[in-house]
């Protein structure tokens, strides 16, 4: 039984059961070394219901959303969408924002473009 699968399917719009384990996603991923569960493993873990482990993994914040895996997935499983869905499912729970507005000013560097701040709010908060 996988209590999360319906929710992840609904939010992501993709179905991890279509994965044929070819590994192209992990082979393409620039964030591979920054994740404890690499993209192909991530898909497999969603499929087998290990979503809570994924919610606690740093990989949901180190995925760059560069869409290399989305582009190259031959089965339209699109791992970046699953990663986003797991991240959203976690962040949408109360108290789970990853970054608060007051966390931003200390991180600002002189040339930091506004889009980085806007992007962070979309990635790290409800």
């Amino acid at each position, binding site marked *: 039984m996988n209590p999360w699968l319906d929710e992840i399917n*609904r*939010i*992501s*719009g993709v179905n991890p059961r279509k994965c044929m384990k070819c590994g192209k996603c992990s082979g393409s991923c*620039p964030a591979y070394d*920054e994740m404890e569960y690499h993209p192909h493993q991530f898909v497999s873990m969603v499929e087998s219901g290990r979503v809570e482990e994924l919610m606690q993994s740093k990989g949901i*914040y*180190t995925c*760059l*959303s*560069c*869409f*290399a895996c*989305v*582009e190259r997935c031959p089965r339209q499983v*699109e791992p*970046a*969408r699953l990663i*986003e*869905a797991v991240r*959203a499912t976690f962040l949408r729970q109360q108290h789970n924002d*990853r*970054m608060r507005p007051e966390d*931003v000013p200390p*991180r600002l*560097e002189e*040339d*930091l*473009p*506004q*889009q*980085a*701040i*806007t*992007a*962070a709010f*979309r*990635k*790290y908060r409800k």
Partner: protein
Amino acid sequence: MKYSYFPGCTLKTRGKDLDKWGRAAAQKLGFELEELPEWQCCGAVYPQATDEIATRLSSVRALMAARDLGQDLVTLCSACHHVIRRVNGDMRRNADIAGRVANYLQPEVPYAGETRVAHYLEVLRDDVGFETIKASVEAPLKGLKIGAYYGCMLLRPSMEMEMDDPENPSVMEDLIAALGAQPVYYAMRNECCGGYVALENADYAYRQSQKVLDNAWNAGAEVLITACPLCMYNLTRVKDHPVQVKYFTELLAQALGIQEVSA
């Protein structure tokens, strides 16, 4: 030709150079970028979650405003382009999203993704034409070895972006050649600079960008051109690297003989 123009948050602030040279070059090439009278930040990141509506609204508002003016919607920033183009696709292809957006906005005229969204590079390629640009060059960038840096957001996912071949793009190289410079091909031209993680995990973004720069340098590039202020930030944070990074509009304006413009 007149286009609706969506500058986005960063082109009014940290990314002013991308904007000002782009506007000046447009004028010189005979097309006009008419800034939308009221635009809202696109949000910088496309909401991949299919149940998010609020984060799509600013894009839809811009798309509808351009439609009402009877104009194509042009962006210069890769991120704005990425977000607006994909949201436009949602309005065309995803009945659930389109229906819920319409329910919220209650538009007088329904919107179903009919606005053409074009990146400035596409305007150069498809509307102006590289032959025309070549003929307009007054100060060719002769001998300069330039690597095109596409990054991720211009090209992928290609089914939605429909801009160029996602694995072997050519639009920026063709522009470089039209300006009289020599395009340099390198493996990481469509790899990510580190993107938004710069704020939370600066070292990680730094490593990503360094790989891109080293790869370009090893292939012989002296300069990289980008269309994205976040790529610009991440790449230029790598200090003392021999590869220079410029906005493509700056080199375009330079080659067109434009000396100075006010921001």
